[in-house]
């Protein structure tokens, strides 16, 4: 069975999480969740994975604030954020398009992004849609800023931006993304065309590494079973079955 785009994304996320002690996954995030489970399996099960909405993969017993307190205590190494808009400085917008507050398009809201982006060392931006509509020069509303002024206390921020077309790394000093790799079927040009902001790029742009045999077996076996508790439809319909 050929490697699917979803499997490539899961494997890429797992690589981005290497070395983390505790990874938390927010709501409605099956691919990041599967990526975290894969990273855990690859790392000999040393990693803790908290999945919002899971009963089994939920270590929290102190109410809704615990996720945020846990991050504040420095006990959470990685988290995932998305964005209706993401710009070239790593700012994300989860509120809407147009002039606030009436807006042309309203999205749900900022959730915990305005906080976790500062507190969690390795924030992975994940958004499958990669288009000029999403990756914009400047966000209309800053739910959470990619970088902060000198003197602002900040432990965390964007580590990478993974889309359906490519993987960007974020350079906090330069305040810019850098194109690390393009997924199979994409190129430096196709990525540039679909991206509304400027960024640096490796030259030539390598292809995003496909999952190896071991990763694929895990994704189609153990990870599939683990993610099925929270995302049964995703596990059944999107992930394959181990050979």
């Amino acid at each position: 069975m050929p490697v699917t785009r979803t499997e490539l994304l899961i494997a890429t996320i797992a690589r981005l999480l290497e070395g983390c002690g505790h990874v938390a996954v927010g709501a409605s995030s099956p691919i990041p969740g599967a990526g975290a489970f894969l990273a855990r399996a690859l790392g000999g099960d040393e990693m803790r994975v908290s999945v919002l909405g899971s009963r089994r993969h939920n270590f929290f017993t102190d109410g809704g604030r615990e996720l945020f307190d846990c991050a504040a205590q420095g006990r959470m190494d990685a988290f995932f954020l998305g964005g209706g808009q993401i710009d070239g400085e790593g700012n994300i917008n989860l509120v809407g398009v147009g002039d606030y507050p009436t807006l042309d398009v309203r999205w749900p809201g900022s959730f915990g992004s305005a906080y976790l982006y500062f507190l969690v060392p390795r924030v992975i931006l994940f958004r499958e849609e990669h288009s000029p509509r999403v990756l914009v020069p400047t966000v209309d509303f800053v739910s959470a800023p990619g970088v902060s002024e000198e003197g602002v206390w900040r432990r965390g921020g964007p580590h990478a931006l993974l889309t359906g077309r490519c993987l960007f790394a974020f350079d906090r000093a330069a305040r810019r993304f850098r194109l690390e790799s393009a997924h199979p079927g994409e190129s430096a040009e196709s990525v540039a065309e679909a991206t509304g902001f400027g960024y640096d790029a490796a030259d030539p742009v390598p292809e995003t590494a496909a999952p190896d045999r071991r990763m694929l077996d895990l994704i189609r076996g153990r990870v599939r079973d683990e993610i099925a508790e929270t995302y049964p439809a995703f596990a059944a319909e999107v992930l394959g079955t181990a050979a």
Partner: protein
Amino acid sequence: MAATRALIRRGARDLRLLAVPQCGIQADMLIGAGCVRGIEAAAVTMGELGGAPRFNAAVKAGAIEIRDSTCPAIHTALQASEKGVPFMPLRGILGTDILAHRPDWKVQDNPFAESGDPIVLLPAIRPDIALFHAPRADRAGNVWIGRRRELVTMAHAAARTLVTVEEIVEDDLLADEATAAGTLPGLYVSGVAEAPMGALPLALTEHYGADTDHLGEYARLARSAEGFAEYLQRHVLAQDVAA
């Protein structure tokens, strides 16, 4: 949800909602039914079913006041009321448009730092009423909340707390150390009403799942004002609707 429907039936007006820290169909229904003057939330969303349609429409029309927040800010502002302090500091948030649109929030330098170090101060939120649904209560008004401890903070922070429960039990929930650990004491509870299946169409963890057909019907109908009126008539206002 039972209480939400009751509020709509009795024609509540000018409510100011506080989502702890996010909300969905309940807020959307109350907004659509014209019960709401304003809302403070970190997010308003129907989850997998997309945005909250009546909320989005009201935002666009400028029909409700919105206070966009972020999850830990709502938890923290309630904790401030819980502790009877006028404010609490919180990391992060600096440089966001959330902060830019919250004139009620202040920024000051951390007085314990050598230099600089701006930090956000959030004023305490003291709700008039905390309203939620729980699995059970006893005759003394003690309410089992398990690990949903944000409900404890809500009740501590609010002037009055009203709870609907699946069942009222004869046992004293505080009598046994095991159940006491997950119980909100009746000291904080102003009123309890029995409302079996009262969370439907939402899920009540460990009791019943969501009625996804019903939620889907809502999401579809509520896209238009007419459809929403039809939903209300069918599921809220009709004489034969229980609770």
